[in-house]
C-alpha cells in the first residue's frame, strides 16, 4: 500500500494509532510558538537552573534535621515547611529535581543511542533482519515496563545508574519503532537512489543520507520521553526502589508524606505540584516541537 500523493509506503502497524496522530491539530498559530510553549519552557529552565546550582542558591541542606520544627507548616525559616524529620521541604524538592532530571534526560538518551541504530537497520535492510528485530521488540514489549524495572531493581539494587540504564533500555522499542518507520519512508526516495547510483555503500547511505532525516522525528519525540522517564522514576522512587532512602527524590518525598497526609499534607503536596508542573511542561514543550517537526513522518508509525 502506498500513499499516491507522495509515493511513500504507508505502514499501518496499528491503524488506529496512526489515524489519531494524523488527525491531531497543530498547537497554536502556525507561525509562532504560543504562551503554552514559552511558559513551560521558562519553568523548565528555572527548575534545571535550581537543580544544577542547588548548593549555591541559598537553600538549606536537604539532609539537616531541624528537631524543633518537625512537620512545620510553611513559614519564614522553611518556605515550604519541613517533613516528619524536620528536613526542609524546599531544599529536598530542589535536590530531588537533580535525580528526576538526570534520569529524565539520560534515560531517553540511552534508549535513543541503542534504539536508533536498531530501528534504522531493521527499516533499511528489511527481510529477515527486520522480522527478527520487530519480533524481538514485540517480545520485549510483552512485559510491561514497570514490571521489567522492578525486576531490574530486584536484581541489581536501586541506584541512579541502574535506574537510568534500565529505564533507558525500556525506551529502545519506541525509539527503534520511530526510526524504523522514518527509515522506511525515506529509503525509497530519490536522494537515496541517487546516492546508490553513484556507488555509495549501505553504511554510507545509512549514515549520511538517512540519519539526518531520521534523527529529527526521533529527537522530537525525545522531550515527551523525558516526561515519561520522570514519571516512571517517580513511581520507582515512590516504591523505594530508586535512589536509596535518605537521598531526596520527588517520588520518595510523596511516599514519605503519605503517613502524615492528615496533619501535614504539604510534605506530599509540594513535591507533587513541582513534579506535575515539570512533567506537564515537558509534555507541552515536547508536543509543540513534535507537531512542528515530526507530524508528517510520525503518521507512518
Amino acid at each position, binding site marked *: *500500500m502506498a500513499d499516491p500523493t507522495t509515493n511513500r509506503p504507508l505502514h*499501518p*502497524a496499528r*491503524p*488506529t494509532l496512526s*489515524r*489519531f496522530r494524523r*488527525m*491531531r*491539530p497543530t498547537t497554536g498559530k502556525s507561525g509562532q510558538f504560543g504562551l503554552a510553549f514559552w511558559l513551560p519552557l521558562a519553568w523548565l529552565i528555572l527548575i534545571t537552573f535550581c537543580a544544577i546550582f542547588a548548593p549555591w542558591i541559598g537553600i538549606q541542606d536537604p539532609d539537616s534535621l531541624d528537631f524543633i520544627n518537625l512537620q512545620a507548616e510553611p513559614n519564614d525559616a522553611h518556605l515550604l515547611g519541613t517533613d516528619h524529620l524536620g528536613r526542609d521541604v524546599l531544599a529536598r524538592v530542589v535536590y530531588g529535581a537533580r535525580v528526576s532530571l538526570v534520569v529524565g534526560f539520560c534515560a531517553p538518551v540511552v534508549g535513543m543511542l541503542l534504539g536508533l541504530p536498531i530501528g534504522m537497520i531493521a527499516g533499511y535492510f528489511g527481510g529477515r533482519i527486520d522480522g527478527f528485530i*520487530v*519480533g524481538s521488540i*514485540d*517480545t520485549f514489549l*510483552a*512485559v*510491561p*515496563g*514497570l*514490571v521489567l524495572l*522492578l*525486576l531490574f*531493581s*530486584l*536484581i*541489581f*539494587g536501586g541506584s541512579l545508574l541502574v535506574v537510568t540504564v534500565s529505564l533507558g533500555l525500556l525506551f529502545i522499542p519506541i525509539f527503534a519503532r520511530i526510526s524504523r518507520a522514518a527509515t522506511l519512508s525515506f529509503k525509497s526516495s530519490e536522494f537515496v537512489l541517487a546516492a546508490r547510483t553513484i556507488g555509495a555503500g549501505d553504511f554510507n547511505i545509512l549514515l549520511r543520507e538517512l540519519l539526518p532525516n531520521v534523527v529529527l522525528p526521533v529527537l522530537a519525540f525525545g522531550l515527551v520521553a523525558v*516526561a515519561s522517564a520522570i*514519571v516512571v522514576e*517517580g*513511581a520507582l522512587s*515512590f*516504591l523505594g*526502589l530508586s535512589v536509596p532512602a535518605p537521598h531526596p527524590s520527588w*517520588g520518595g518525598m*510523596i*511516599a514519605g*508524606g*503519605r503517613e502524615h*497526609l*492528615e496533619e501535614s*499534607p504539604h510534605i*506530599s*503536596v509540594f513535591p*507533587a505540584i513541582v*513534579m*506535575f508542573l515539570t*512533567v*506537564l511542561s515537558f*509534555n*507541552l514543550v515536547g*508536543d509543540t516541537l513534535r507537531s512542528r517537526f515530526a507530524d508528517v513522518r510520525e503518521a507512518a508509525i
Partner: protein
Amino acid sequence: MRYVLKRVRRLIVVVFAVTLFTFLLVNVLPGDVAYDIAGQDASEEEVQAIRADLGLDRPVMIRYVEWLGDFVQGDWGRSFRTDEPVAEAIWSRFPVSLELMVVAQVFALILAVPFGIFAAYRAGRTVDRTIATAGFMSLSIPSFMAAILLILVVSLNLGWLPTSEYEPLSEGLWANLRAFILPALAIALSEWVVLMRVLRADLIGVLQQDYISLARAKGLPVWHVILRHALKPASFSMITILGLQIGTLIGGSIIIESIFALPGVGRLLINAIYARDFIVVQGVVVFIAFAYVLVNFIVDLLYAVLDPRIRTERSDG
C-alpha cells in the same frame, strides 16, 4: 485461518521468549536467594546446603527446562518464603486485579465518551481546546500522585470515602465496590485521555461523511444524529484501545494496588520483590506477560474479524 495460525505461532514464540528471559534474569544474575535465607553470618557451606536443598546448584538450563515443564502442567513452584504455591497465590489474587481494571475502564469511559463527543462536535473551538488542555494536565499526573491527592481530598478533607479495607464480594456489592472507587479513579484519570482523543479523532472523521449530512438534512436533531448514527462507527478504534489498555493495566495497577492495600496480583509482585522471593516474582512476571500478550492477541483477532482488510495487510507484519 492462515492469519490466525500465524498469530498463534507468534503468540507461542513470544511467551516462550518471555519465560526464558525472565528465568535467566532471575536465576543467573547475582543476589542468590540462598544467601538471603541463610542470613549474613552463614558460612559458605550452609549457603551451599540451602542451594542444594532448593535445587539451585544445578545448571541453569536444566532448571529452566524442568521449571518450564512444571509450569506448563500448572505447577509454578512454591514461594521460598511462605511455601504458598505460586499458581494458587496468583489465581486467588487475580479477581481483585481484574475487578480494579474493569472499574477503572468504566470510569475512563464515563469520562472519555461525553468529552470526546463534545470535543469532536466543537472541533477546533474553545470547548475542544479546553478539553484537550484538561487531557494534557490529566496525563501529566502520574497515577500514584493522583492516588495520594484523591486520598487527601476525597477521604481526608471531604470525608466522603474513608479509606476502607478491601472486602470480598460475599460481604455485599457496595462494601466490595467502595474500596475500588478511589483506586479505579486514580487509574482512570490517565487512561481516559487516550480514549477521548481517539474517539474525538474518529468522530470528526465520521461527522464529515455524507450519510451524516443526509440525516441532518432530513431534519434530525444534532444529538440524535451524533448518538444514534455517528457514535457507533466512530467508537471502533476506541474499543480496540480499551482492549489494549487492559493489557497494560495488568502491570500498571501495581502501585495503585499497593497504595490502597488491594490484595491483587500487583501487590503480590511488590511484596515478593521487597521480600526477594524470586520464584513468586518469576511466576507473576510470566503471568502478567502472558495475560498481556493474550489480550493483544484477542484484540488483534477481533480486529481482523471485524475489518477484513487487516487479514491480508498485516499477515506479513
